[in-house]
């Protein structure tokens, strides 16, 4: 990026693209052309900046100006004021939520202060469709080092020393996995990149592939060199069209530059990458199911052992790693295992990318060192709870994980602490919940997901989860009994112990974790038929306060089932036998006369 003296970076991640960021880029180019500045200023559509809450984002280098919620119409003002006259457009700058002061330099934003970007190092910085920009940022240097200076065993030792663990969920040590596949004797081996990101609410793998696809390709080639494979496969969701397109471009460019294909960098090493498409099945995130899906079959898991490292794709030794895991590899080679191991906690090294979403002010993608506390993530980076409400819990690990309550706000986050707290790292979704979220309903929501996604092969998962869901349904409509709570716990334990694969073994976690931490809430549902969060509609009771009611008839006219009666200018009344608890009367009343209990 040397020949230009200014760069305009426009976020081209999925979120910002949905808010017309491509038109913003086009408008920049048109305006710059009118001023004859296209040779001096470069406009780049980058990967995700992470600050999705205030997208579309436009960043201007070298002065590091961070514009938020830019519209295509704002472009002229930015060009005329900032580019031509050198005056930042204050109304588009990020404002500190407390002091309301505009922040001119992105470095001053709390959102970025505590982040360390390793896997996301190039996201929002380079043009993902141009291999030279990746190379300009030390890209493919790690592959070069490995091929020319290191034996496969030395590289594997380095990955082991770094302490890197799988970022897809389980946290298996990556170096050990590579070593196992290396030691399997075979004429053919495979490197597989698992990009079947199915955890609802997690989008880091997609952002890496959209923003920095070469980092994954480079790591796959390094892995191929280490384990003795000449073929790589990326298994990616068909629902990610933009990531697929950028990956295809990256593969072609890498082939043109001789970084994929035969005799890479003249070292006599052959490696090429192909894309395989998923078709929407959460269970395919499980290694064995993923491999069956790549073979054109139903994505049903099989019992391990044999592990893919011995018998995987087409019966050959296969090493499966997740996108984020791969994205860390080149940096470990370039900066050294010691450097990587210096970040994080005793057993969890490096950083983790989290997708922060739900009831939080700064929704987005963040990368933080292992060992950071929830409090730092939610309040310092995330900017606190939306609408100033009260923090209730954060759900991590998606449908396989659990909820962390207030008492865990100061626990350092790493693989082991999360498991000890009854949750798990998972792929890194973090959903923040406030006091209006009912924990029984949340558990039911995840069970619905598991029901949809259970492959049906083994009975505990197929039938057990169905029964669990039925009990939860009963509780949320007010038909639950106190015995149901014990039944939930017992059934959950059986499903965990007897299911075939990771999906079934972890599917009751959202139920168990909410039972542990929010037992009172379950109890209120079954004993007094109350939902404290006010989310379970069937448990709501609407009534009209006769003293406040002015008899304006607004509720009477809007009630869809005619449950409200009363004379004009006299207090109205709700017939409970007719009320469907839709809440329209509550919304419409201008005098706060409709009460919810």
């Amino acid at each position, binding site marked *: 990026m040397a020949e230009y003296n200014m760069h305009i970076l426009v976020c081209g991640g999925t*979120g910002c693209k*949905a808010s017309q960021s491509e038109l913003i880029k086009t408008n920049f180019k048109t305006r710059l052309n009118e001023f004859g500045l296209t040779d001096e200023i470069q406009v780049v559509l980058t990967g995700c900046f992470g600050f999705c809450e205030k997208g579309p984002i436009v960043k201007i280098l070298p002065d590091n100006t961070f514009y938020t919620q830019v519209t295509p119409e704002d472009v002229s003002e930015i060009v005329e004021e900032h580019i031509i006259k050198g005056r930042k457009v204050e109304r588009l700058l990020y404002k500190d939520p407390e002091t309301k002061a505009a922040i001119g330099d992105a470095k001053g934003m709390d959102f970025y202060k505590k982040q360390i970007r390793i896997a996301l190092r190039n996201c929002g910085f380079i043009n993902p469709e141009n291999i030279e920009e990746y190379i300009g940022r030390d890209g493919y240097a790690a592959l070069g080092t490995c091929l020319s200076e290191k034996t496969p065993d030395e590289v594997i030792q380095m990955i082991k020393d770094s302490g890197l663990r799988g970022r897809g969920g389980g946290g298996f040590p990556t170096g050990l996995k590579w070593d196992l596949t290396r030691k399997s004797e075979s004429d053919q081996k495979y490197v597989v990149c698992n990009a079947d990101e199915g955890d609802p609410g997690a989008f880091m793998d997609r952002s890496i592939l959209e923003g920095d696809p070469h980092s994954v390709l480079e790591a796959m080639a390094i892995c191929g060199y280490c384990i003795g494979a000449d073929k790589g496969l990326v298994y990616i969701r*068909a629902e990610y069209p933009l990531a697929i397109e950028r990956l295809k471009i990256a593969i072609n460019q890498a082939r043109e530059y001789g970084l994929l294909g035969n005799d890479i960098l003249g070292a006599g090493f052959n490696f090429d990458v192909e894309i395989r*498409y998923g*078709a929407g099945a959460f269970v395919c995130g499980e290694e064995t199911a993923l491999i069956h*899906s790549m073979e*054109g079959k*139903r994505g049903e898991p099989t019992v391990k052992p044999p592990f893919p490292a011995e018998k995987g794709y087409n019966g050959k030794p296969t090493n499966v790693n997740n996108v984020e895991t791969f994205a860390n590899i080149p940096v470990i080679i370039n900066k050294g295992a010691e450097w990587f191991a210096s970040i994080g906690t005793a057993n969890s090294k490096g950083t983790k990318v989290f997708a922060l*979403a739900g009831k939080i002010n700064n929704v987005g993608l963040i990368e933080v060192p292992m060992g950071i506390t929830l409090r730092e993530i939610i309040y310092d980076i995330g900017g606190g709870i939306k609408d100033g409400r009260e923090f209730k819990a954060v759900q991590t690990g998606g449908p396989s994980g659990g909820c962390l309550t207030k008492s865990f706000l100061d626990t350092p986050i790493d693989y082991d602490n999360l498991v000890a707290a009854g949750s798990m790292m998972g792929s890194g979704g973090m959903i923040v919940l406030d006091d209006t979220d009912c924990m029984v309903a949340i558990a039911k929501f*995840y069970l619905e997901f598991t029901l949809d996604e259970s492959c049906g092969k083994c009975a505990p998962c197929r039938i057990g989860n169905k029964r669990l869901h039925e009990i939860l349904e009963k509780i949320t409509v007010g038909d639950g009994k106190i015995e149901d709570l014990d039944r939930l716990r017992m059934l959950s334990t059986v499903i965990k112990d007897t299911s075939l694969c990771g999906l079934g073994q972890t599917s009751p976690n959202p139920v168990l974790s909410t039972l542990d931490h929010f037992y009172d809430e379950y109890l209120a549902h079954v004993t007094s038929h109350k939902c404290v969060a006010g989310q379970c509609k069937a448990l709501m009771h609407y009534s009209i306060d006769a003293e406040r009611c002015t008899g304006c008839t607004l509720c009477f006219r809007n009630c869809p089932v005619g449950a409200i009666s009363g004379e004009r200018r006299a207090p109205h009344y709700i017939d409970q036998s007719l009320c469907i608890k839709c809440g329209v009367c509550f919304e419409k009343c201008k005098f706060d006369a409709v009460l919810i209990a």
Partner: protein
Amino acid sequence: MPKIKLSEKTIGLIKDVCADFGNQGSELINVLHQVQGKLGYLPAEVQEVIAKELNISVAKVYGVVTFYSFFTMIPMGEFPISICMGTACYVRGSEQVLAEFKRQLSIEVGQSTADNKFSLNCLRCVGACGLAPVVMVGEKVYGRVSPQMVKNIIAEYKEGCATESKSA
């Protein structure tokens, strides 16, 4: 499900796709992706042709089609509407948005309107959690959708067709 008769052209098209993948049974998922991309859906009759070409049983093809949520055996509406039911969207009210779409269109999830204009589906996480709740109509993404906005979103496409048919 009513029987449909495939035209010679359609059968030829399916055969070509199978041939592109070397008529290999292991390429079934890739074949299905391609065929659905061209035809819009995968009715039983299409599956029969694919099974024959790849030399595998129809049961196996059917098993794979019904396993993966991306494949569909019913045609989608002209404007397929997908509501994101990912966790981030769920906690920001996507259930109410879905209920409003069902009410406005008088159809359930997985169905199409009588005029085949709209079909309704749920999907899990578009990856635009910053815009939650998210609705997609075709390729277009609508962010921060409230139940009140649903009527206008639908109207956009109804009107769109009206002006199109006028100009045509």
